[in-house]
């Protein structure tokens, strides 16, 4: 997933980074094809070049040698709402047919089966980032037809489509999973399978999704990670195997 996600980044992108796999993916991209990524953390670190794998998005290593530090008011108002962020990374306990993401509760809000951490900056990242990359392992539980709670809006839902709602950002453009990649249909925003890893089959992917999954006619077959990518991830970027 980290290798695949890293390929979604273009050199020079201004990226709002979360912790864990997105952070790994960004640093892999920076070490390979996108040396000029600008990494921004909601904690306020701008142009971070962490010399250790940060455990939290507020790690001191994100500040040392960064290009700048912004207050969180500036990060959310001027950077994110201001339309300056090209890519936002999101995870989530549930992702649905239209890319709506739930990181708030499983079950009803007032009597949750599982209480999740909540939005953090996810709601506004989903609204404002030019494109959102979602990184989440695929499973029927995590990819229901409709999420229990919309923390971060996708392409359509009970409040309308992004266009009807006037959302400025592009929403979840790529959903990178452990078996393949989904993308919203240009027609109705429903997630479709657009690419698959060599180890997976279309039937397997379909069985892990809570709606009848459409498959793009030009389905891509991704090559396995190169030895160099695996080496970078395992030996350089996450030597203590915190995330992989």
């Amino acid at each position, binding site marked *: 997933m980290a290798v695949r996600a890293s390929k979604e980044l273009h050199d020079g992108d201004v990226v709002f980074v979360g912790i864990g796999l997105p952070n790994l993916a960004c640093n892999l991209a920076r070490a390979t094809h996108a040396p000029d990524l600008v990494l921004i953390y909601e904690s306020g670190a701008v142009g971070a070049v962490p010399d250790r794998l940060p455990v939290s998005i*507020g790690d001191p290593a994100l500040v040392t040698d960064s290009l700048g*530090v912004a207050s969180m008011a500036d990060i959310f108002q001027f950077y994110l709402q201001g339309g300056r962020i090209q890519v936002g990374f999101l995870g989530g306990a549930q992702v649905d047919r239209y890319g709506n993401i739930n990181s708030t509760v499983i079950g009803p809000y007032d009597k949750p089966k599982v209480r999740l951490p909540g939005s953090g900056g996810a709601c506004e990242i989903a609204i404002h980032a030019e494109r959102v990359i979602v990184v989440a392992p695929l499973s029927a539980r995590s990819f229901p037809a409709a999420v229990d709670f919309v923390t971060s809006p996708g392409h359509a839902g009970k409040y309308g489509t992004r266009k009807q709602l006037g959302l400025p950002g592009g929403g979840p453009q790529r959903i990178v999973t452990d078996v393949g990649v989904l993308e919203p249909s240009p027609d109705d925003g429903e997630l479709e399978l657009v690419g698959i890893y060599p180890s997976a089959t279309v039937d397997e992917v379909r069985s892990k999704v809570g709606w009848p999954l459409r498959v793009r006619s030009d389905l891509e077959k991704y090559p396995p990670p190169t030895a160099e990518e695996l080496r970078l991830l395992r030996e350089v970027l996450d030597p203590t195997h915190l995330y992989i």
Partner: protein
Amino acid sequence: MKPAGSKVVTSKVVTMKDAVARLVRDGDVVVIEGFTHLICFAAAHEIIRQRRKDLTICRLTPDLVYDQLIAAGCARKLVFSWAGNPGVGSLHALRRAIEKGVPVPLEIEEYSHFGMVARFSAGAAKLPFWPLSDYRGSDLPAVNPLIRTVRCPYTDVELATVPALNPDVTIIHAQRADAEGNAQIWGLYGVQKEAAFAAKRVIMVVEEIVESAVVRADPNRTLIPGFIVDAVVCEPWGAHPSYAQGYYDRDNDFYVAWDEVSRDEARLRSWLDEFVHDVADRAAYMDKMPGLRERLKAKPRFCEGVNYGF
């Protein structure tokens, strides 16, 4: 003309015990801010020791600091935007309080980060609300009636609003301040400035109290002016297990270990006894953690100064 650089007439320096006794009251709306960086655990521990009750505690990320306050039964309401142990998992005391009312029931009021930042900004600016382009398409407004809308008088577009948050007391941890509370922070700022200006009372806790001349030598580093500060507390290592850039690193091991401590209610109670109730102050807490200073003390990475001459 008279330079007044180093003069200190009114010192606000007190002990943490005195600051909390005087400025934090039962039923208060209390904010201990700091985003990952500079979270004042020392103040939370003193609040626990003085057995404050019925607090409404507000923070973007409750973090371990509020998990502890909640476990100790100090809080009746939590206002927040992301409740987890970063990179580790759940906040178990918080979940027990919400799900089972243990040790006391906990009401919650939930926003996103931007919503919380905006609430503090409105509070600091003495505006009753703050407009933001947010929440459309999300279920958050459906479960929080305080997220409302306003119509733009120019474009007729509808924008989300959140109400001002004006804490009774905000507690800020900073690297250094003078005795009047003129405080300098570097590294991550979080929402410290907004939370301080929004508050009726401000407690400034610092790693070091310095001469005013140190502050005046580099005025652009000052984040919070002393005239809005009510008490200044010198509490080295007061942010542990959080961190202070240039002073000590984040204790990531502690955050990981907390998961096990807090998962079990009895074990968490005995942790509070040992590390909070049974210690007099932060110095005594640090004495119980041999080797911690050596493990976490910051390495030197000094920047150059700049010229303020004219």
